[in-house]
């Protein structure tokens, strides 16, 4: 099987989808001729023509608003927001329109769109190229929210998202584009080619939305993570020697609650990890659900290890980022509680 980086896998997902279904169209800022600032759409305009893959004016509102209209017509737009930090101008169209269109029209009009955006920090992007806004979407009924952590999932989930009949927010951890990253920023960079999950089938396949994956089986404590944090959690487990079970949620909305509950009932302990700020982050929902469904199995308080409640800083990036040290401390604390 070919090996792909996350960028190649994402590109392949769009390529395969555009090849199979001419209703799939791709657009966004710098997405057409140039192929995207992260090169995720490189070659698609050349292959499918300017009316199926094109550059747009710099208006996130326009990109999503037009996509909604196209979806109502019957197309399947897969659009790119250049950075998740820039999705807010489109927030009204996503929340008030895309998310509610099926409901408010009783299914007469639907909105099968995918909104792709690079998310997360770790690239010295400062406060406007580092954010993880997933919780601002998980609160919105009618949306689905996906965060892949490796090339094989990225392709399969993106194909599933494009084929999904409802709007999907597809957050791509940009720090994973070129290799898995465990938070040890001072060590040599690892390439995807060394990782088993960079084996990606060439053709069509999908990974179902709403299903988590267990990345590491363990019996001592459950770690709930997604995106970059999956690798940070793995590093923390190895470095502390704690027998953690690491669940990669993959889809946040709808959530694979069964997988979460089964694991926590088994381990009796739970640590939640994300890069977004703590307060009202998605970890809050996870903690609320876990205590509700596993109350009588919990042996220690559920902990959240997250970005601090500040804007994402530039110089202090590694003090902000919840790296393996902080996650490891939480694992130890969970075991000692």
């Amino acid at each position: 099987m070919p090996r792909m980086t996350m960028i190649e896998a994402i590109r392949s997902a769009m390529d395969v989808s555009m090849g199979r279904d001419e209703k799939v169209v791709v657009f966004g800022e710098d997405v057409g001729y140039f192929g995207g600032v992260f090169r995720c759409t490189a070659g698609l305009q050349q292959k499918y023509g300017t009316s199926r893959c094109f550059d747009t004016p710099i208006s996130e509102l326009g990109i999503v608003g037009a996509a909604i209209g196209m979806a109502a017509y019957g197309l399947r737009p897969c659009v790119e927001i250049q950075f998740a930090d820039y999705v807010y101008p489109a927030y009204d169209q996503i929340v008030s329109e895309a998310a509610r269109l099926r409901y408010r029209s009783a299914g007469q009009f639907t909105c099968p769109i995918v909104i792709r955006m690079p998310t997360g920090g770790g690239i010295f992007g400062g406060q406007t190229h580092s954010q993880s806004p997933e919780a601002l979407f998980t609160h919105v009924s009618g949306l689905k929210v996906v965060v892949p952590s490796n090339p094989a999932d990225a392709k399969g989930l993106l194909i599933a998202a494009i084929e999904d009949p409802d709007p999907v927010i597809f957050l791509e951890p940009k720090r994973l584009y070129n290799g898995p990253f465990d938070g040890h920023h001072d060590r040599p960079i690892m390439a995807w080619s060394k990782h088993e999950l960079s084996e990606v089938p060439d053709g069509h396949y999908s990974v179902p939305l709403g299903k988590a994956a267990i990345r590491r089986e363990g019996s001592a404590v459950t770690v709930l993570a997604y995106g970059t944090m999956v690798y940070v959690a793995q590093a923390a487990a190895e470095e502390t020697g704690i027998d953690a079970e690491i669940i990669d949620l993959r889809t946040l909305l709808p959530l694979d609650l069964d997988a979460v509950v089964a694991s926590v009932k088994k381990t009796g302990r739970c640590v939640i990890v994300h890069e977004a700020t703590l307060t009202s982050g998605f970890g809050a929902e996870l903690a609320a659900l876990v205590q509700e469904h596993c109350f009588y199995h919990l042996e220690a308080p559920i902990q959240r290890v997250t970005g601090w409640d500040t804007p994402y800083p530039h110089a202090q990036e590694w003090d902000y980022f919840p790296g393996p040290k902080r996650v490891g401390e939480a694992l130890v604390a969970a075991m000692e509680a």
Partner: protein
Amino acid sequence: METYGPLSLHVPEPEVRPGDTPDFSSVKIPKAGSVPRPEIDADPRDIRDLAYSIIRVLDREGEAVGPWAGSLSPDELMAGLRHMMTLRAFDARMVMAQRQGKTSFYMQHMGEEAVSCAFRRALAPGDMNFPTYRQAGLLIAGDYPMVDMMNQIFSNEADPIKGRQLPVMYSSKEHGFFSISGNLGTQYIQAVGWAMASAISRDTKIAAGWIGDGSTAESDFHAALVFASTYRAPVVLNIVNNQWAISTFQGIARGGSGTFAARGLGFGIPALRVDGNDYLAVHAVAKWAVERARRGLGPTLIEHVTYRVGAHSTSDDPSAYRPKTESDAWPLGDPILRLKNHLIRLGTWSVERHKQMEAEILDTVIAAQKQAEKNGTLHAGGKPSVRDMFEGVYAEMPPHLRRQRQKAGV
């Protein structure tokens, strides 16, 4: 060094407020028939004047005059009259129904009937409107059943959208009527997207976007003009300038620009102003713009100059912010009266037959209402089910919603 006096904030104010005498002398009304009709492929730069004038067909005597006249046959005009009268009767009944507690809310069209009724007749099957809450004429003139409109307004068990939306927020794909949002402006760029999709699909269908004068200030308006201009989308972008946005007069949204239509010029989009109370003029301009779009010539911006005679909604009382008699002073008159007079002048209509038709229409509306009420009204009779509240958030109900529905015991 030079000295400068202190600055001060300019806050536009309407010429009159409650207690004052209405005054529309600042609204320049060109003579009917005086504005030229360019070819549909005219260079937008050569027709900029159309954004500062008003295209009118019916003159004071009820005669159809000038280059924009002649787009409709007498039969079509009769149909138009019927549509407008039906909409007005429908509105009157629904305002009453709201007062009787049969629905929570209603929004009427009085004075603006020509805009949506005439526009609808310039479209072809398969075209799609992206309307606001004040274009029910698109449904009436598009033969959508009144009973279904009422079922929606009453949120009853036959409500096609299952009680989920506010009254008047209709949706009918089949009738080329996109689901109304409630959030102002959002549909404008969606209309452009729909039109782009038609072009991408090498279809022949076109879209029409709708927005109020006040709502042109919203961001979606800008996005729509940017995208429509860049991709030459086959879309007609309508601005219904009814002079008011709830209590706010149009000067607040329009600012220093002469007209709303002028906003199109900066995008190279042909922009036309039309007498929105003149059924013939609206239809002729709509037809021109629709033809442009369908011929691949790109977008057109139309400002329909009209006046909101009624309250903004059943929650509003305009006497708090404008003279009670302002609507009588509105210089473009009443659209129904003007079309009626034109038909009488043509000799195909009479005062008696008009009265008779009025009565007939009222009967039809009442009959529809009776039928709709059988399905229930907001607080009485049949209701959409509580299950319907949980359905349709997604194509397939995800586990968490299923759990919640179970918890709700339905």
